[in-house]
């Protein structure tokens, strides 16, 4: 893979290999969308069955952190996009700088989400179970809300962690990439942005719908 025009033996050309890799990641993202699908479906379905209890749960979330985290993720994808555009012009050092920013923004999301938000919620007794701190008629529905909340954010966070690993790998490998040959940067970028898309569905489910009425 050291030579720019090199390609694996099952492909006719480097271009052929690039196109195939891009097709592969898009199809992979389709499977990821369906992977998250049951959470969204079940969440909406369960909310529909008991909306007022879900509202009680939803209002206990921290909208400020939620908003900050949304901004962090979108900014991070933007930074990644700039990095990808720069390597397209052959500007490797620029790419590394912007990808490092993207990485830092992603890491900040993780820090806020799990270091601050989760910790507060756990200390307030919002994890479902015997010690759940919301009482009254909304107790069971609010528990269900937080079951979804912890499950979905953990899974999203796991995806983000894997993304941080991939970004670090791209930054470490930066020497390999040129204006003509940087398919991995493109592939990881699609994955990185996809994590945002998942968040953009989780964000209203967690923070907004409960506050709407």
């Amino acid at each position, binding site marked *: 893979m050291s030579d720019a025009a090199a390609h694996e033996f*099952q492909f006719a050309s480097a271009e052929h290999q690039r196109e195939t890799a891009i097709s592969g990641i898009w*199809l992979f993202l*389709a*499977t*990821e969308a369906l992977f998250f699908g*049951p959470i969204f*479906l079940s969440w909406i379905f369960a909310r529909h069955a008991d909306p007022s209890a879900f509202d009680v749960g939803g209002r206990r979330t921290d909208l400020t952190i939620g908003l900050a985290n949304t901004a962090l993720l979108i900014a991070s994808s933007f930074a990644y996009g700039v990095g990808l555009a720069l390597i397209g012009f052959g500007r490797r050092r620029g790419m590394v700088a912007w990808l490092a920013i993207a990485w830092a923004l992603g890491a900040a999301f993780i820090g806020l989400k799990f270091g601050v938000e989760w910790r507060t919620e756990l200390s307030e007794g919002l994890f*479902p179970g015997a010690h759940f701190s919301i009482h009254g008629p909304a107790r069971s529905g609010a528990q269900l809300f937080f079951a979804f909340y912890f*499950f979905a954010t953990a899974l999203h966070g796991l995806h983000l962690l894997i993304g941080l690993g991939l970004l670090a790998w791209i930054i470490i490998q930066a020497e390999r990439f040129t204006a003509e040959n940087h398919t991995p940067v493109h592939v990881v970028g699609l994955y990185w942005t996809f994590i945002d898309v998942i968040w953009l569905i989780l964000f209203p489910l967690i923070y907004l719908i409960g506050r709407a009425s």
Partner: protein
Amino acid sequence: MRDAAVQHSYLDDGRTLRSWLLTTDHKRIAILYIVAITFFFFAGGFAAFLIRYNLISPKGLIGSAETYNRLFSMHGILMVWFFLVPAVPVTLGNFLVPLMLGARDLAFPRLNLLSWYLFMAAGVVALYAVVGGGVDTGWTFYTPLTSFYSQGHVIAAVVAIFIAGFSSIATGLNFIVTIHKLRAPGMTWYKMPVFLWSLYATSVILVLATPVLAMTLLLLAFERIFGIGVFDPAIGGDPLLFQHLFWFYSHPAVYVMILPGFGVISEIIPAFSRKELFGYKFVVWASIAIAVIGFLVWGHHMFVAGTSLYSALVFSLLSYMVAAPSAIKVFNWIATMHKGYIRFDAPMLYAIGFIGLFTTGGLTGLFLAALAADVHLTQTYFVVAHFHYVMVGGMVSAYFAGLHFWWPKMTGHMYPEMWGRAGAIIIFVGFNLTFFPQFLLGYLGMPRRYFAYPQHFEALNLLSSAGALILAVGYILPLGYLTWSLLYGERASANPWGATGLEWTTASPPPTENFAVTPIVTQAPYQYRQAEAVNHE
């Protein structure tokens, strides 16, 4: 025809264990998979054998309902996820997709190897669950039994299926991208053999349905570990939701199991009838139609689970619709054989058996798709018989048909033909003896999944168990003579059946790079009349 001696066959390209375990050659990975799949087939089969042993006596010979529950759960889990779903795609598919396309390998060879390791990891976890005491939930893992009440190694079983799911996704993704991107020059979509089309349809289901199962099982595990979760009615969750999500995967998954079989049969029938496949485009689009409509019928598993009557009506109607493309295929195969020069080699015997058994299974499926009949027949042995006619009579026959058909290509050796034919006939007889009585038992009202039964069902159960013994002999036979053929079988020529298709233009066994020169495709598939004309010149 090239001389095989000039080129290195893929089997000679490294003989160490390491050269096998780190291979990215799709042909070698197919062989690795065959070894693994064979193990799980016999492990699952052994559980089935014990089930039939238990049912010889109305009181149950094993003596423990608990053990019996664990046996049928093990049988279901191993057979569904470790044999039926992967069987044809990962073995014949892995071997043949690049060869049939005129490609050198799959698009992502390392992903292909990873899928094998995931499969093996899943298998180890599944075996741990079995050896550690098993699960008593059945292969369907219904909540709240699974999440709150069941005693066994539910988490281990769920983790095993979760991992196996990603192995499936990797394979499906690889096939789809390969078929889109790695077709040889001139290999247009309508020049592709039907086997590739059927694997394409299969892969679409694998890629779109398996993630849903994966997430559903994850939610189930969450609920079981934390004692609280989304299927728990105590906090407003819904056990029916689990069934919806589970069958959203598991009904399309039965098409994952059978569609590759359709593909195999569509290759074999023309080859042994010396005729072009009748209605190629209809067969092709029937596969796609099954994949699409198959996503819309899951509700028929829940007719008596408390879903609304209107949704049941719609699901019933859609379930009828999904039968139509399968029927189209059956008619096309028969029309292909009509006025053909039929040869009764072992693959063809299996294929003809497939048509009969699959049609029986398919038509009895219509009984179950009918809302009114299903209310009577559901949870009886009628369902068991229907499912096994499609899955064992259909899918396993197709797998054996394909294994015999492409055995010379894969190994470079012919299997002993007389043994092959004997095996095919024994399996057909044993199968019918095992499962036809179960239709009658179900019709008479014997419920499934019980380890004991009333006295008056004894005769039919005895017949069924006797059939299982014959079936076991039929399955062990190929294990013997196919292994024998590896050492002593006659050397196979590049094209021992005189079949069309790019895989037959290269040596048996093929060289590592498949084709010395990338082939250029100019002909439609299945041009058997032309092939005959050339042979007679």
